[in-house]
């Protein structure tokens, strides 16, 4: 039998963030399995970003625990930092650097040795058939390529968890599909993916979801479980029901 800690990539218990009398995140609990694609959804101000920042060790919780691979985030923020990767909704690579320079820069930030960066980069660019592109400036690349590269950079140091913030908003459906192929490749290698988004079609790609509303988790489960719990035909409908705005559906 595997030991229990190995099974969970993320464990959050009674996590809370208060700003004075305002409770941004209200004692939430959830767990994410290794290799799972987990979606954290909610309207603006529901507490998604605050939760994400606490999970990344950028913000200290006022109560509760968050563990990544069994390590306490607030106890060991430095060691947690090496276990995670982050890709923002806005293209986060340096446009004025070449592809190779971006990998070298981010690899360095995550504490990789230059020889390691070189080796992994060569392997990656060979596999993606882009060895001749390594010296191209990032800004010259098509949008779809940038999106894929940003994910590769975020997962280059083999993090056990990659956080994606609205990863596919504004890209065409084919690019989006290619992007998901990369994510699927990563989860088959047991990388855990956390997606924060308020675009509901992205939610349907997740294995499980937590929907946040006013700092609390108001729905938690697989997309199908949530749909049947709310007797809804789409995630869109679930959102309107949680917000008490079902009249819009009429």
């Amino acid at each position, binding site marked *: 039998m595997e030991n229990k800690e190995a099974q969970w990539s993320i464990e959050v218990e009674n996590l809370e963030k208060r700003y004075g009398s305002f409770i941004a995140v209200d004692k939430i609990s959830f767990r994410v399995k290794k290799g799972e*694609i987990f979606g954290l959804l*909610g309207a603006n101000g529901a507490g998604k970003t605050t939760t994400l920042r606490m999970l990344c060790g950028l913000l200290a919780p006022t109560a509760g625990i968050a563990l990544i691979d069994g390590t306490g985030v607030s106890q060991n923020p430095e060691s947690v930092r090496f276990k995670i990767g982050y890709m923002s909704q806005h293209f986060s690579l340096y446009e004025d650097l070449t592809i190779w320079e971006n990998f070298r820069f981010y690899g360095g930030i995550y504490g990789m040795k230059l020889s390691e960066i070189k080796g992994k980069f060569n392997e990656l660019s060979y596999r993606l058939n882009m060895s001749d592109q390594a010296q191209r400036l990032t800004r010259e690349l098509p949008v779809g390529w940038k999106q894929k590269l940003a994910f590769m950079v975020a997962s280059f140091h083999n993090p056990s968890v990659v956080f994606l913030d609205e990863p596919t908003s504004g*890209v*065409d459906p084919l690019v989006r599909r290619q992007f998901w192929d990369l994510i*699927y490749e990563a989860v088959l290698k047991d990388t855990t993916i956390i997606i924060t988004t308020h675009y*509901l079609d992205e*939610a349907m*790609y997740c*294995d499980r979801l937590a929907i946040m509303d006013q700092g609390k988790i108001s729905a938690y489960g697989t997309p199908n479980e949530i749909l049947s719990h709310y007797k809804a035909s789409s995630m869109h409908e679930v959102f309107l029901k949680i917000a008490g705005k079902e009249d819009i559906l009429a």
Partner: protein
Amino acid sequence: MISLQGISKIFGAITALDNISFEINKGEIFGLIGPDGSGKSTLLRILATLLRPSAGHAKIGKYDVEVDYKAIRKIIGYMPGQFSLYPDLSVEENLNFFAHIFGTRLEENYFLLRDIFTYLEPFRKRRASHLSGGMKQKLALSCALIHRPTILLLDEPTTGIDPVSRAEFLMLLKNLKKHEITILISTPYMDEASACDRIALFKNGKLLGVDTPGGFREAYKRTLYSIRGIRPARLLPELRTLPSHCWVYASGNEVKVSTPNPNEIYILREMLDRSTIKQNYQIHVIEPDIEDCFIARMKDTYGE
């Protein structure tokens, strides 16, 4: 109401719009749908008389966008992609300011704004910069409507706002239809097609087609299967061994297989039954959604 004939726009080496022609009817909600960089904003700016086309003609009613720009500016309401109201003015001050510029008063066309104003009312003294994204968009819509335009040009009004506010915004647009306002709305979100009477699909400055959402679905010439019950991450690599005329991709928690030959379901079933993934699955023929149609048109146009 709006007619485009061979509109192109070239910025240096980039062709932002490539020979675009179509018509928009009076009183329609017409969606310009496409990813970032597909030319939607450029087209709206040409219609708003803020950019001149490099080639072609565009008319709004009887007015030409290049010749009669002054007349056009009086009959359009334009909501740019960037929030462009005064952040330091309150909701009420912004409304009064825009009313004044257009030589009208808030009360005069209040019937148009009534629905939207019920949302804004509690915040009328609040500065625009302190509104939520959804409220900002509602205020911007109010300011674009204040002079009772016959045409609304809305550039990505729902981008970046939360799902509930998006739904509210689209509902408000539907309610405007009874006032016979023609609405042109751009969006990168394909699921918003259902809020439109007709849509135009754009990619890299090219028009992939114009039709009703239902028309696009009917024109889909392939058979589309949905396979549920097996995690797409596991199923996709297996199905990629299908012949290349079968398009295989994930869509949410299902995997879709699109094929020109309906008989291929037998190959597909056999493949799934032989598979090492011993899991129950369900396979169904499904109707394509707008993303599926977009993919098919893209492959037709670009031969990918």
